[in-house]
């Protein structure tokens, strides 16, 4: 394949055979993003081998995970645990963008970057003189990623967004749960993950395109659109029928019974999903062949779909006699697809779950962190490395990226640009 001219920064570090390096080895990412969607996205890029330089300031540090938490004394105290998980495998530089020197260095670093990621509100980077229009002439290969809530165009581009407001705006709360339920949410930062993954995908696509064209681009992602896209089939159906799609709760449109059933302990639940008539017979047997189950109406899937409420009443009367562990065990033994509701304590350290988490040395301690949920047979992913301390790599990055000497750096330190 024809290789167009590439910016000099994307060469692999000397001495490393690119066949043995992670796929994004040699790619430099300048990361202005805060909290979750952006930092999650750049963690994925770091795991794939990119060098991520996180830009923060001690006057405006990334507040991710910053709740007042009592940490055991042997733990790292400088950043909250969630921050450490999301920002591992990155480097940190402190630049005060309120100073002219800070902005000047940021622009110089951007001139050397392959990718710049920011999730400020629309217009903030432009006002700092660090918008795509400012940087592109200096670095035509730059891939500039914006990840604001609503995008940099449109009547609501200045709206403030948070994870919960985006969950709500994207329709997630009203397509989740059963008919008549209150708005139903997920207690994690779902939208940040969805937005971050879209952005990482977009970055790598843009890198591949740049190999051919030599040109970068501005990727103006809207977090709202990322989330709406994952609900798009139901939006299509609404547009066609002119009414809301049915809320399905835990049921399926095509198989029955399927649901989440109450078990004997407190807040104890087990899911099951009968996919075939044979599995239905297996369920009946597991429940001890009760009389009600021989009802003709339940023999075939259509009948079971039509009488789901009645069926659920019977099934739950059975499940509620046992713990979810017992119900799951009996159903699996009978060949019925089932899984109990597991909380995090039944996932971390389990032999059949929790493989997405891996121990990482962070001297003097070690911590469990999230790994990339994939295995690469060529080059592998980047080895796990602890999150940086605030500003840990300030001087090193200025030397490595910009070739600055200690004397070059001194005036910026004096100006307060590096705080």
């Amino acid at each position, binding site marked *: 394949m024809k290789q167009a001219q590439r910016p000099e920064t994307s060469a692999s570090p000397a001495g490393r055979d690119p066949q043995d390096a992670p796929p994004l080895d040699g790619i430099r990412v300048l990361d202005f993003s805060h909290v979750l969607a952006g930092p999650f996205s750049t963690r994925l890029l770091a795991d794939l081998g990119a060098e991520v330089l996180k830009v923060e300031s001690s006057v405006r540090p990334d507040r991710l995970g910053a709740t007042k*938490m009592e940490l055991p004394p042997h733990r790292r105290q400088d950043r909250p645990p969630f921050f450490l998980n999301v920002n591992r495998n990155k480097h940190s530089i402190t630049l005060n963008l309120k100073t002219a020197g800070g902005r000047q260095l940021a622009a110089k670093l951007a001139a050397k970057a392959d990718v710049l990621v920011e999730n400020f509100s629309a217009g903030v980077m432009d006002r700092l003189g660090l918008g795509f229009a400012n940087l592109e002439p200096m670095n035509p290969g730059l891939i500039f990623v914006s990840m604001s809530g609503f995008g940099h165009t449109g009547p609501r581009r200045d709206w403030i967004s948070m994870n919960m*407001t985006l969950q709500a705006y994207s329709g997630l709360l009203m397509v989740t749960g059963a008919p008549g339920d209150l708005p139903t949410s997920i*207690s994690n930062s779902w939208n940040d993950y969805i937005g971050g*993954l879209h952005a990482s995908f977009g970055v790598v696509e843009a890198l591949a395109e740049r190999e051919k064209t030599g040109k970068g681009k501005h990727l103006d992602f809207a977090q709202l659109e990322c989330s709406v896209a994952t609900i798009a*089939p139901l939006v299509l159906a609404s547009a066609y029928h002119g009414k809301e799609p049915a809320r399905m709760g835990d049921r399926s449109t095509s198989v029955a019974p399927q649901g*989440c059933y109450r078990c004997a302990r407190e807040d104890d639940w087990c*899911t*099951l999903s009968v996919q075939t008539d044979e599995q239905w017979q297996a369920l009946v047997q597991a429940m001890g062949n009760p009389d009600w189950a021989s009802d003709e109406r339940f023999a075939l899937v259509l009948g079971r779909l039509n009488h789901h409420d009645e069926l659920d009443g019977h099934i739950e009367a059975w499940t509620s006699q046992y713990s979810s562990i017992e119900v799951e065990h009996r159903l699996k033994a009978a060949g019925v697809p089932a899984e109990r509701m597991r909380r995090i*304590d039944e996932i971390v350290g389990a032999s059949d779950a929790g493989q997405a988490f891996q121990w990482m040395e962070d001297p003097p301690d070690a911590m469990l962190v999230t790994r990339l949920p*994939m295995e690469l047979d060529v080059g592998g992913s980047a080895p796990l490395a602890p999150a940086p301390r605030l500003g840990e790599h300030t001087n090193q990055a200025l030397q490595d990226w910009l070739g600055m000497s200690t004397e070059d750096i001194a005036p910026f330190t004096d100006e307060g640009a590096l705080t």
Partner: protein
Amino acid sequence: MARIIDLTAHSAVYATRLLVESGHEVIRIEPPRGDSLRRLGPFLAEAPDLEHGAYHLFLNAGKRNLTLDLTSATGREILLSLVSTADAVVGQSPFPVSREDVKQANPRLVTVEVEDDASPELCAYARSGLLAITGHPGSRPAVLGGHIVYGGSGLYVALAATVALYQAQRLGRGSTIKVSLQQCLETFVEAAMVAYTFEDRITQRRGYRGASTAVSGAFPCQDGYWMISVPHSPTGWRAFVEWVNDPVLMADTSLEHEANRLENRDMILDRLAEWSRQFKKQEIVEEAQRRHIPASPVATALDMVHDPQLEARGFFDHVDHPTLGSWNWNPRGAVGVVSGRTVGPAPRLGQHTAEILRELGYSEEDHRRLLEAGVV
């Protein structure tokens, strides 16, 4: 642009949809009777059929479609012949053809193998820990609606595919990336993992009230619900109180501290719920945003159809669909909006079988024979 063969199940099919949005050629292979995605409702028709399932229409949009019986030797042979022309195969592991045959057919090929034990979505969701954090405290937990969770896993698969293609472009050789569906879902409970390993705290379902900050949640209004999230800071609180103009909340200055708000959360939220009933969804969130308070409609899927922001950004575009006719709600998708590309209609079952066979060098006569044998 790459040519990608799509053998994904529902858990990863959003990946190949994203590759279409990015401009790649995607050929989806289905059994001659059509796959389960086509049978998944709701349908954009009065009665279910294979061409109007909402999930099929969105997730397969812009792809080419080849029907192939991969249980037959001839079907697998045709697949290998197609593989020799492709850049990548993305699909559920194990593939219907052996890894050796694939590598032999195309040494530069990229493969993304999704390790999915075919557990029902609800069960996989329960095992991942996500079910325990979805829904209302104490009541029946819920799976995310609309199969949204497969959007999450599909995104990881899309990332794997683009990375492997990029690497192949640079190194001139193919590679294999295996993506674990279970691990994909588990990554989304990482905050619970951190809370558990650092604080011994087990994250539970928090429901719709006070889920992020003390004063946050979904509240009823005239025409549905709206969502607000008042920031931790005293300034955020003051902006909120000034707006709501509630004498009780204004009088109590101790509420400027988040800790005190947490203690009095139900009282505050009850008053907020009562107050907001007088407004319409759009007017109340527009006023909140004007005051720089994070708020949004609790939108329904139908609200999205005429959303001013999505409309202005060109999230939907027009498509001439063979049976839906002139159709204005063809989603470009989040990547499509950024790439500026339009995505064509979803293919009919077997729509491109004849032309793909022709491209591979099969004659009309071969095609007729394959049809008779039920291979295509």
